[in-house]
């Protein structure tokens, strides 16, 4: 495109036509921004025609989760009650950065209401379907963002991750997603959930594209460690994994030379601390609306938020205190290791009509529990790359590559290497 061989407008028109044709079956896109996108694509083409360089994302159509501000539109954050909210006066900082790199915003994307869920089952905007099997969940809360990329509607989308909302849908939809280091990317214009845990990040179909998106977003372009010391998280992260997936992880482990096992202490407490911090902060944030307009919430979100708002302050304080200690313990693991590997979700996407998963022999709701392996790691704030592991199963599974604080570069380089060697890769949706 930068050579002028093909116009940005042609890429954008193609994406718009594809969304118009295929989105109804997926429920990934909530708002198609055709006029804005065509105007922006025309501006990119004008730069090329004038001999300029529009940037590394020249003409790349992208979409954003419904919690990013888009000038002129209400930021719904997936809430029906916000459909009539005052329109945003400017674009979110991340949208500005992607468009400054030549990208073209084409659509906004479905999510769980207020990002509180791992399912993208939304009472107002519908249930996002997994492109690999429309009877199954796409995961959440950034389910629209993941499904749009997995289905090939868009090559790049943005989501947010508090407890796993990038990593869970990336794993279930079979694509790459990056949860950056906490605080690494700007949250300006992104509807908040839990300050302690929130980050934003990209989804793509390849590790190389993820790296380009990361840099376009303003991520640190540091040098990658060319020979990272890799270990595999043990204990909590070795149970509740489907046997076939566990076998595939063992094969990757052997390929990497037989990885040392690392036990992360107090993972159960870390997950509970994340759960409690999320409930308390989420409940406090939405308390005025919960008191005044409770019945306008998605019931599945509302009752969780109300319960969170009723948590004792002592519980919240204890969870925060634990979080600081846990972060120090995770940081200590990086004295001897550079990357830690763990499953992102224990198996394939659950069916929509039976949205449960098995944990310790019991069936529990998927909406609250798909983050079993992602939620504890959120508490530490380190960067985590979710990637699709190639295996014998018909549906995607994903792994987490956990890095040292601020070292996204090593994760991206390792993912790119493992993708080129055939161990990682986005399967094509039917």
């Amino acid at each position, binding site marked *: 495109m930068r050579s002028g061989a093909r116009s940005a407008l042609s890429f954008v028109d193609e994406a718009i036509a594809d969304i118009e044709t295929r989105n109804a079956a997926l429920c990934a896109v909530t708002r198609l921004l055709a006029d804005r996108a065509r105007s922006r694509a025309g501006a990119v083409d004008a730069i090329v025609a004038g001999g300029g360089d529009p940037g590394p994302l020249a003409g790349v159509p992208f979409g954003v989760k419904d919690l990013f501000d888009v000038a002129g539109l209400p930021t719904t954050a997936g809430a029906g009650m916000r459909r009539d909210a005052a329109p945003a006066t400017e674009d979110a900082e991340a949208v500005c950065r992607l468009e400054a790199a030549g990208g073209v915003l084409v659509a906004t994307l479905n999510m769980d209401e207020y990002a509180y869920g791992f399912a993208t089952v939304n009472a107002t905007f519908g249930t996002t379907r997994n492109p690999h099997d429309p009877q199954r969940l796409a995961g959440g809360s950034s389910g629209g963002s993941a499904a749009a990329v997995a289905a090939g509607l868009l090559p790049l989308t943005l989501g947010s991750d508090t407890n796993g909302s990038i990593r869970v849908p990336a794993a279930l939809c079979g694509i790459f997603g990056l949860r950056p280091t906490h605080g690494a990317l700007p949250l300006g214009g992104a509807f908040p959930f839990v300050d302690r845990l929130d980050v934003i990040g990209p989804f793509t179909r390849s590790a190389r594209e993820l790296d380009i998106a990361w840099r376009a977003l303003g991520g640190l372009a540091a040098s990658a460690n060319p020979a990272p010391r890799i270990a595999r998280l043990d204990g909590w992260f070795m149970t509740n994994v489907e046997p076939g997936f566990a076998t595939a992880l063992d094969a990757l482990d052997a390929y990497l030379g037989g990885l040392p096992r690392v036990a992360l202490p107090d993972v159960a407490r870390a997950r*509970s601390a994340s759960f409690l911090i999320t409930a308390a902060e989420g409940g406090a944030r939405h308390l005025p609306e919960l008191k005044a307009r409770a019945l306008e919430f998605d019931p599945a979100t509302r009752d969780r938020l109300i319960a969170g708002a009723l948590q004792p302050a002592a519980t919240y304080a204890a969870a925060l205190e634990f979080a600081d200690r846990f972060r120090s313990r995770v940081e200590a693991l990086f004295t001897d290791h550079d990357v830690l590997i763990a499953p992102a979700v224990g198996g394939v996407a659950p069916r929509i009509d039976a949205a449960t998963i098995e944990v310790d022999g019991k069936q529990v709701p998927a909406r609250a529990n798909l983050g079993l392996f992602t939620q504890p790691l959120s508490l530490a704030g380190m960067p985590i790359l979710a990637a699709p592991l190639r295996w014998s199963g018909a549906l995607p599974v994903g792994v987490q590559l956990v890095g040292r604080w601020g070292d996204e570069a090593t994760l991206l380089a390792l993912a790119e290497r493992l993708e080129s060697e055939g161990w990682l890769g986005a399967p094509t949706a039917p």
Partner: protein
Amino acid sequence: MPDAIASLALATLDWDLPEECLDGVRSNLMLLAEHRRILEDGR
């Protein structure tokens, strides 16, 4: 938490919960109590 104390907590917040919420809130409070126990006990 016992219903009497829950009612007191809600009154303190000047919050009259709609009937439709009560079952869901109760089950979520139980879930959070379980996580509070795990945070405190480690198991």
